[in-house]
């Protein structure tokens, strides 16, 4: 029987990291599906197309008219001169700075294609411990944003202090 819903037969056996521990789970198809992948994915090309459609709607929607315009971003990368239009048709960025030059668009794209905007994996050793506190700060910043959104100002103040503390230790390092 499925260990999660206890109603359907368990047909999927999977391992998961839970709190840093590898745990064996026996689940039904439906529960396994929910754990493994919250949103459906198709082929990469379809995802890419889906992203462009969404970008069209999200940022370039003619407010009020409901008419979707073609993305006509005039943004150009400051390092490599890649234009956003070229990226859109070719699907490849021109350099690392493109990720900043088209920050808003890349953020939406990553959310769509990857389902995440936060790297959880390995990082270059040369970045040392600094990268860990940077990651912590960026995590706290997003918590701060949602705290402000739900008007939990007490929590927001606490988070802001924590961020300041982390940032000041980074400077002294």
């Amino acid at each position, binding site marked *: 029987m499925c260990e999660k819903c206890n109603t359907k037969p368990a047909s*999927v*056996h*999977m*391992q*998961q*990291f839970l709190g840093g521990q*590898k745990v064996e789970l026996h689940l039904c198809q439906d529960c*396994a*599906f929910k754990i*493994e*992948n919250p949103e*459906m*994915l*198709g*082929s*990469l090309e379809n*995802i*890419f197309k889906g992203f462009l459609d969404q970008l069209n709607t999200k940022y370039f929607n003619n407010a009020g008219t409901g008419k979707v315009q073609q993305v006509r971003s005039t943004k150009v990368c400051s*390092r*490599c*001169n*890649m234009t956003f239009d070229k990226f859109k048709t*070719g*699907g*490849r*960025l*021109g*350099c*690392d700075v*493109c*990720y900043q030059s088209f920050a808003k668009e*890349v953020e939406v*794209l*990553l959310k769509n*294609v*990857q*389902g*995440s*905007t*936060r*790297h*959880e*994996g*390995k*990082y*270059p*050793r*040369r*970045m040392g411990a600094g*990268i860990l506190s*940077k*990651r912590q700060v*960026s995590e706290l910043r997003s918590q701060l944003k949602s705290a402000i959104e739900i008007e939990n100002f007490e929590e927001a103040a606490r988070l802001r202090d924590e961020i300041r503390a982390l940032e000041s230790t980074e400077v002294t390092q």
Partner: protein
Amino acid sequence: MTPWYQEALTDENEILSSRVRLARNIKRYPFRRKMTSSDAAAMVSEASEAVTMAGNFFRKLEIQTLAKTEQTVFLEKHIISPEFLNGNLPKGLLISDDQNVSIMLNEEDHVRIQAIKPGEGLTLAYETAGQIDDLIEERVEFAFHTDYGYLTACPTNTGTGLRASYMIHLPCLTKSDLSNNLLQQITKFGVAIRGIYGEGTAPMGSIYQISNQKTLGKSEEEIILSLQNVTRNVISNEQKARETLLTTRKSYLEDAIYRAYGILSNARMISAKEAMDLLSDIRLGFITKILDAPKPAKQIYQIMMEIQPGHLQRNAGEEMSEQERDITRAAYLREIFSS
């Protein structure tokens, strides 16, 4: 060390090989799309120096000056990608003596580290690729973003830059017409499945590549574990399909396997696609013990590679027309199976 496809431990296993690829870019050069020829040459020499300084594990090949058949052989062994042969910018290929580890310089990204292991060796393959990543990183600075991780030319690789994949043999799912269904099922789990020679190529020999789609938001270990979970379930479906075939359609299975044996030991001309599908039946014949015939000295999967056009022409030492290849292929297979 022998190359992974000659190691004999996997001939009964659904998993034929495990492969890991890490994509990296060197911070001080623009990505390939925006590189000049001199950028590319400088990048290739800087990266190959970083690799060779770390130790004497690799030999460097000038891929652009290699004979066409040699290039094709590397493609057929999955040591390089078709993308790698595109364009005229300087490139480099570093390859370990046993060919289990290769580094493509100036593929879509500056550095693509690849490690292959026989059978289920995904964790080992990742460890190997990761060590090489560390060695190179001691000498060059990779493009890295605090939130997004390793930055790549295509955002579909950003984050870990990790593509983990298995090459798996699924003859019974293919025969039961369940493979299309399964294909749709498992893409929901964040994995991609394609034929042995990649996207857009016809599936041959019931061999599939199965790999993770997402590279961001999960650690390398989680990506690998996830792929292992999906693959384990695919394999258990294959085994169920095999049991079903053995109990409900045994005569059909026996007939298919012995026909395959008959054709491979007698044909005078045979295409790669037909031979691959028949070799798949032979492999199934040995797994199910239906086929009562001497087992060839080489693994079936190795034979599958050696009948590809590039391998055939390299072994013959000359370029051949399609018809000449079909004749040579049939002769090669007869020699293996008619003795």
